[in-house]
């Protein structure tokens, strides 16, 4: 301990030359140890979290094995649990959310980073940050009371009338369902996409824009053909970050998705997502197998977001450090 402390952490030459006892008297070693314990606590928590999710889902893992992920039957009465309807619901609502939120988010980010004067951009950014602070239960409430009736009376009938030939927009419309959840999710993730993309766009070197303009590009051409491609990987990172949020988002989705464990090709039909089935059934779960199946769903969700977050961070770090592209050079 003493040796590593002096060799690795004695940053200043003065500290290195003092003896361990002297440093102990000064309290440096004590402070180091105390803060070290607090930092280790964070590491322990994460390890313990993964361990607990694994341990508490032992029953369904042994009973169903991989079939848990590919089976579409969720029947608590007969103790049969398959996660597929929830995985499907999670992926479909998140994909819908991205489809709606990405153009809006990137468009706004371009405006904030490229067009708006700094003061306007900062003010709007401030409002966007406030928007990101709105709790999801409030989005859920607005979803129930505004979007669901709108969906039932106007949007769904209109979609069926115009695009009804697609299997995506068929069947009865209850108002609640995958599409409604997707729209609510989209509203929630737009702020994340804007904030991160704006910063990425702002970090694109000025020369890039000037060079494009000097070559005779219009303002839009310089933005769309030079600046955005330069920031491509980082923007993609912001999208993945938003996707990870959407996958784990619970309350707003639970309130508008309809909580029905079915796989339907229609976006208008009710469904369920991993997070929302945990939220709505956890306290009612009777029996260990039922409860542990929900924990295993939690494990699946954890792994999904873990992979996505890692990927997103990698992309963002790559862009902000050396610009996006290896292939851009």
């Amino acid at each position, binding site marked *: 301990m003493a040796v590593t402390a002096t060799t690795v952490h004695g940053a200043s030459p003065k500290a290195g030359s003092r003896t361990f006892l002297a440093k102990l008297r000064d309290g440096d070693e004590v402070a180091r140890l105390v803060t070290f314990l607090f930092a280790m606590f964070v590491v322990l928590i994460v390890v313990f979290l993964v361990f607990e999710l694994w341990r508490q889902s032992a029953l369904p893992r042994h009973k169903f094995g991989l079939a848990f992920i590919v089976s579409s039957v969720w029947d608590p009465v007969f103790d049969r649990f398959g996660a597929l309807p929830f995985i499907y619901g999670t992926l479909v609502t998140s994909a819908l959310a991205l489809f709606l939120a990405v153009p809006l988010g990137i468009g706004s980010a371009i405006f904030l980073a490229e067009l708006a004067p700094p003061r306007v951009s900062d003010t709007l950014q401030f409002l966007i940050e406030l928007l990101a602070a709105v709790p*999801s239960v409030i989005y859920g409430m607005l979803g129930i009371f505004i979007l669901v009736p709108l969906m039932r009376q106007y949007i769904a009938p209109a979609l069926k009338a115009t695009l009804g030939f697609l299997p995506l927009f068929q069947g009865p419309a209850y108002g609640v369902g995958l599409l409604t959840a997707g729209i609510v999710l989209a509203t929630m993730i737009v702020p994340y996409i804007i904030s991160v993309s704006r910063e990425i766009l702002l970090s694109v070197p000025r020369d890039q824009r000037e060079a494009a303009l000097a070559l005779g590009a219009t303002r839009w051409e310089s933005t769309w053909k030079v600046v955005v491609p330069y920031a491509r990987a980082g923007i993609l990172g912001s999208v993945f970050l938003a996707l990870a949020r959407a996958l784990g988002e619970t309350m707003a989705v639970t309130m508008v998705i309809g909580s029905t464990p079915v796989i339907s090709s229609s976006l208008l039909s009710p469904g369920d997502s991993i997070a929302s089935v945990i939220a709505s059934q956890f306290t009612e779960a009777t029996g260990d197998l039922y409860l542990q199946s929900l924990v295993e769903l939690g494990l699946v969700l954890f792994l999904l977001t873990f992979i996505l977050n890692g990927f997103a961070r990698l992309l963002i770090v790559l862009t902000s450090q050396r610009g996006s592209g290896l292939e851009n050079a």
Partner: protein
Amino acid sequence: MSTRVRWRKVVSHLMLALTGVCALISVSVLFFILGYLAFHGGSAIHWEFFTKLPAPVGEIGGGMANAIVGSAKLLALASLIGVPIGFFGGVYLAEFSGSRTAFVVRYSADLLNGVPSIVIGIFAYTILVLPFRHYSTLAGSFALALLMIPTTLRSTEEFLRSVPRSLREGAMALGASRWKTIISVVAPAAYRGILTAILLALARVAGETAPLLFTALGNRFWSPGWNQPTASLPVMIYQYALAPYEDWHEQAWAAGLVLLGLILVVNVVARGVLARGVAVPRS
């Protein structure tokens, strides 16, 4: 000017205008939410909302006093657990750690930050509810604390690092030990940024519902103690909004308005006043 050039200019103006429209739509959502909540919740907010317990099912009236106090208790205990861990962990990263431990700690914090809040709820359930066989305020606070730790830790580290080296060297040249330098020079220089980050983390978890559903559960009465279930504003909103009673819906709006109002005020104060001139990290 050739038609081609004129066309390109038209496209340029059009697309740039479109991005403006995008920004306008995105920002107007905030005003829509605020306006709608104020409109619906404003009429339902009265003195009783803050002072009375929820009325029995079927009766009109009542308030959410227990949920307001419950939320306050949950947040207080969560800060008590989460802030020291995040702060001292951040101090370790910024001042003491070697690069390898720093990587592990930082990676863990980032990982924890990305864990969906519902999964944090499951974790708190398995370690603090299952063994004791009952839901509790403590379990809810623990879940919220876990959500606060990553932001507190990373921003403490960042703000401590951003303190100029010369300040540190000045203190050490005067003979101060390392930790004395941190306590009396470095931390005070960075306190505004750190405090801002903590306040923002607090505002964020104040609206968290998912991790409370099966830890703090909910309660229609005053919570008798830290090891008993407690009501909280977000969970109350969830239950009242889904209930079939018109009167409950109104109370849900009122609760939503109160909650959102508090969160936004904290955000504005933290970002606008406290953090003036400080780069606030994204949550």
